[in-house]
C-alpha cells in the first residue's frame, strides 16, 4: 500500500490504480491531523494543563487568604513552592512544544511567530517586573493583594491582543482579550476575591482555547 514503486511511473500503485478514494480521504485526514498536531505550537494537552495550573495556583492563594480581616496576604511557603514548580513545568513544557513544532520549519510565518514569541516573553517579564518596585515601596496589603492578581495580566492581555490582531492571529487575539477581561473583572473582587476570579477566568480561557485548538486540529479535510 505504502511502498514506493521501483520503476517510476509504470506501476499500478504509482498511478494510484489500487488506491480507493475513500482510503485516500481517510489517509488525507489522518496525515493532515497529525501534521497539524506536530506543527502547532499550541498543544491542547498543554493548554489544559495550564488551565489546571492557574486554577491550583490562583485558587490556592485565594484559599489561603480568604476571610482575612484585615487582609494580610500571608501565603504559606509550601504553597509558593508548589506554584513555582508548576510554573517551571509549564514553562519547560511550553518551550518543548514550541521547539518541536518549529523544528525544520522556515519561512515568513515562522519568523512572524518568532517575533510574537519574543514580544510575549517581554510582555510577561515587564508585566510582572513591576511588582518588584511595588514590593520595595511597601504598599498596603490590599494593594499588594489586588495588583499581582490583576494588573500584570491586564497589561499582558491587552498588549498581547493588540499584537496578535496586528499579526492576524485571531484565536490568540481573542484569548488575550479574554485574559484581559478576566483580569479587569478580578479588580472588582477585592484583595482576596481577585485571586479566585482571575484563577477561574484564566482556567476557562485556557480550556476554551484548548477545545478550539483540538477542534481545529481534528477537523476533516473531506468530510463535513
Amino acid at each position, binding site marked *: 500500500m505504502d511502498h514506493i514503486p521501483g520503476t517510476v511511473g509504470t506501476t499500478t500503485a*504509482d498511478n494510484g490504480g489500487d488506491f480507493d*478514494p475513500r482510503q485516500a480521504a481517510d489517509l488525507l485526514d489522518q496525515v493532515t491531523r497529525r*501534521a497539524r498536531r506536530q506543527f502547532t505550537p499550541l498543544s491542547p494537552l498543554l493548554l489544559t494543563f495550564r488551565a489546571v495550573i492557574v486554577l491550583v495556583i490562583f485558587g490556592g492563594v485565594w484559599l489561603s487568604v480568604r476571610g482575612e480581616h484585615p487582609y494580610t496576604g500571608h501565603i504559606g511557603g509550601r504553597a509558593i513552592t508548589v506554584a513555582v514548580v508548576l510554573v517551571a513545568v509549564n514553562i519547560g513544557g511550553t518551550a518543548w512544544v514550541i521547539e518541536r513544532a518549529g523544528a525544520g520549519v522556515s519561512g515568513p510565518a515562522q519568523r512572524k511567530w518568532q517575533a510574537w514569541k519574543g514580544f510575549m516573553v517581554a510582555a510577561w517579564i515587564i508585566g510582572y517586573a513591576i511588582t518588584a518596585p511595588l514590593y520595595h515601596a511597601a504598599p498596603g496589603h490590599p494593594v499588594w493583594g489586588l495588583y499581582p492578581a490583576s494588573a500584570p495580566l491586564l497589561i499582558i492581555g491587552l498588549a498581547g491582543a493588540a499584537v496578535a490582531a496586528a499579526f492576524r492571529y485571531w484565536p490568540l487575539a481573542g484569548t488575550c482579550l479574554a485574559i484581559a477581561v478576566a483580569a479587569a473583572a478580578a479588580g472588582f473582587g477585592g484583595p482576596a476575591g481577585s485571586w479566585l476570579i482571575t484563577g477561574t477566568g484564566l482556567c476557562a480561557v485556557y480550556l476554551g482555547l484548548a477545545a478550539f485548538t483540538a477542534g481545529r486540529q481534528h477537523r476533516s479535510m473531506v468530510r463535513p
Partner: protein
Amino acid sequence: MTTELDPLIHMPTRLKIVATLAALPDGDALSFTRLQDMLGLTPGNLIIQLRKLEAAGYLASTKTRNGSAQRTTVALTSQGRAALSAYTQALRDLLGGLDRDGRPAEAGRDHVTFRAGTADVPGVQDGDGVAAADAGVQPAARQ
C-alpha cells in the same frame, strides 16, 4: 458529473507529502530531514516522489550550504496548494455521492477519472458509477 482525481496526488506517498506540507502556513518550508522523519520514508523513496512533485510545479526545493553541511528545504507552491484543494474537492464530490456502505446514493451517480488519463480507479468506472467501489475498501493506510 465527472470527478477528476489528480493522478500525481492520488498516490499514498505523494498524498502524504502534499498533505503534510499543506499543513504549514503558506510560504513556509520544511527541512528534508523533518519531512522524512514525519513520513517515515527512506531518503531515496522521498527524493523520487519529491522530484515528481517538483517537476509538476507542486513544490519547490531550496538547497542552502552552511560550511560543509547542506540543508534542503521543500515547500508547497501555490500551484501545489491549488492542486490539493482541487483534489480534496474531487474527493468530497465523490464521497458525497456514496452512501454509508459505499454504494452510490440516488442523487449522486458520480464517476471518477484521472485528469491525465493514466488509469481509472478500480471499480469506479463509467456506467457503473461507484457501485463496485466498495468491493476493495480497506482501512485507511497507516505508516
